[in-house]
């Protein structure tokens, strides 16, 4: 596994994780650090929207089903506000039609839980490549 290049200076790209499940919020930051990313975790869409990370976030790893605002709704809201953050959706529910709809909506990636570290890294890399 190759660590991504630093963009400028010592700063690592910031990845934000939004998921209501504690297991994810606890485990993902360690793995992302291993990949060479900085990360912040949020337990809800609202928490993320009110944070100071919107501009800094290079890629958003976003759960779909959450209490309150759902992942896709957050995605739309970000676009509405003009934040072009690439989004990788993660979900425990296998729903092909949802995957297609999110693709059309401009999602950068879609992962079914549980996913492997390789799949996650590939999705993040694809999402962060300049289109």
């Amino acid at each position, binding site marked *: 596994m190759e660590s991504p290049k630093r963009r400028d200076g010592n700063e690592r790209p910031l990845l934000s994780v939004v998921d209501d499940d504690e*297991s994810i919020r*606890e485990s993902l930051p360690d793995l992302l650090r291993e990949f060479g990313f900085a990360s912040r975790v949020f337990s809800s869409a609202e928490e993320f929207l009110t944070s100071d990370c919107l501009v800094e976030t290079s890629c958003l790893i976003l759960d779909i089903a959450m209490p309150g605002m759902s992942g896709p709704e957050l995605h739309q809201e970000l676009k509405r506000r003009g934040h072009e953050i690439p989004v990788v959706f993660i979900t425990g529910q296998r729903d092909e039609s949802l995957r297609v709809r999110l693709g059309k909506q401009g999602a950068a990636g879609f992962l079914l839980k549980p996913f492997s570290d390789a799949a996650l890294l590939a999705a993040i890399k694809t999402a962060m490549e300049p289109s």
Partner: protein
Amino acid sequence: MNTQVEDPAQEVKRLQRCISDLVGLLALPAVWSGNEPSRIVQILLDALLRMLNLDFIWARLRDPVDAGLLEILRVSDSCRLRITTQDISEALNTRLVGDGQESLPIRHRFGGEDISIFPVLLGVHGESGMIVVGCGRLDFPGQTDSLLLTVAANQASIGLQEARLLAEQKRITYELDRRVAERTAELAAANEELRKEIAERKLTEERLRHGEQELKRSEVHKAAILDSSPDCVVAIDHEGRITEFNPAAEQTFGHRRSEVLGKPLADVIIPPSLLEKHRTGFARYLASGDSRVLGRRLEMTALCIDGREIPVELTITRIPQEGPPAFTGHLRDITERKKSEDALRAAHAQVLRSEERWRSVFENSAVGVALTDLDGRFIATNLVYQRMLGYTEDELQQLTFLDITHEESVEDSRTLIGELLDGHRQQFQIEKQYRRKDGQPVWVRNNVSVVPGTERVPRFLMAISEDVTQGKLSEEALARARSELAKVARITSLGVLTASIAHEINQPLSGIITNASTCLRMLSADPPNIDGALETVRRTIRDGNRASDVITRLRTLYSKKELSPEWMDLNEAAREVTALSLSELQRSNVLLRYQFAEDLPPLVADRIQLQQVILNLVRNAVDAMSAIGDRPRELLIRTDCDAENQVQLSVKDTGMGLSPQAAEKIFEAFYTTKTDGMGIGLSISRSIIEAHQGRLWAIANDGPGSTFLFAIPCVPEGFADTEAPANPTVRRIDS
């Protein structure tokens, strides 16, 4: 003949008998004297048949009195042959032609037997007739036979002659009597006629005497009648000229008597349309005396002076007087009567039309209509009603509505009709079942009322009936569909459940994999990050336990396998499953009490599934009491057995209780009041109880908390094949 001389003694006997026969024959006239010729011949024939020992004897002669042909045949009782007059005639004809007396007697075969036939003429030349005798004896006729026959023939001739004379004498006497009577009657009639003439002449004289006076009185009388008669009286002579025109006629027709006397009737009151008829009728009567109008009451029209034609009733009579015929006509203006007749006719037509309309309404009504008497016997029914029940009108009239009411509806109908007749109600509506003629039940919505009687019609019942069988069937179908839908909904929710399970499990799994991956990377680093790796491993173990918990929780609640029913003891099963929860109950500070029915019968059920239900109810009860701090946390598990062979188990808590809205909603999948529940426990519990043909429900307690209950039949339908409870697992546990 030579056979007769064999024995002198016999010969003597024969002669003696001959003499005695002769005496007999000579005595015959004394017997038949004064009798009819036919009777004379009969007496003679019977005597000869007996004396001569004949087979038959036949006579043909002209009746000397009325000249009719007599034919008499006597056959001996001992004769076995069937002999007819025709046979005898034929025998005579074949033998007598040409041969004359020479070949007598004639031998002829009758039915295989030879018979000697011997004809004897009556009168010198047979002018009185003929007797023919037949005898099977070979020596017939012997001397004595001939002698006796000859004497008999003579006697007969004389007898017949006498009879003829006697008859002639009688005829003449009768004729004489008749003529005398006739003449006497004529004289009597003439006498009577004479008396009448005298009387009439007297009467005429009398009349003549009073004639003038009578006439005068009659004239006055007649004038009074004429003048005061409400009828018009018009008289005409034989030329049709008016000779009388009374005041009523003046009044009615507007002519004055003085102006019309002597004028032809045709010019005065006969309307133009009837002129021709009047002339021809009048002419015909004068020519032939033939009248179609005399003495009859006629209706026609008559002409008034102002040209109006009015309807009149007319009677024409001929005036009984000498000389040329003259007539009077009585006329009555019937304009008013015509009017009222027309009005009556119109009114009647109106009634008929109205009746027709009502009948048409009755017949063509889209709903069934039946009229019955107060006993419920059908008086009239319309076509829709008849079709609805499959009976004809005639058949229904033999029945009462109770006869065709379905057993289940009879009592209700009887009660309601009773209230109707008592005046407690004016009408009622009932949905009831009838039985059609073909036996099929039919649902009918009836609107029944009492129709008050009139002076001609006694009060009766009217039922307006609508066939609602289709509707009823649809209702049943709807209920079935609803229950189907509920099942489908449950199955669908199982689908949702599966997805939910996947989601629940995937969360911790996702954590496990991520942690493990991170751990691997940390250990592979140089230098290895041991502390980080230990932390990831701890998280991995915790996530693994979470996943395991989810699965355990789901497995206890959700079991997709078929029911495996067995004979079981519900008390024992309940005790067993709650024993597993005892530590949890103690931790939660819950006091558990049992109240088990001692006489609870064993039941056939899936033991494991019922235990899942009980466990679920106990867990729910414990959860409901978790927030309670101000009162004891009590859990009561109770079993009962009811009369319908159902067993019941209830779980009563002192928890936060149940709102009425929630009481049904809690059984829906994914409905939950708990923060950490999935809301499928009660839904699945209900499915299990329904699979046992029972029901699961909840009620709010009188005091705090709620009670959950289920009731199931001891042996659900289709479970009866389960092996009898010889099974040692079924034990009685004393509570």
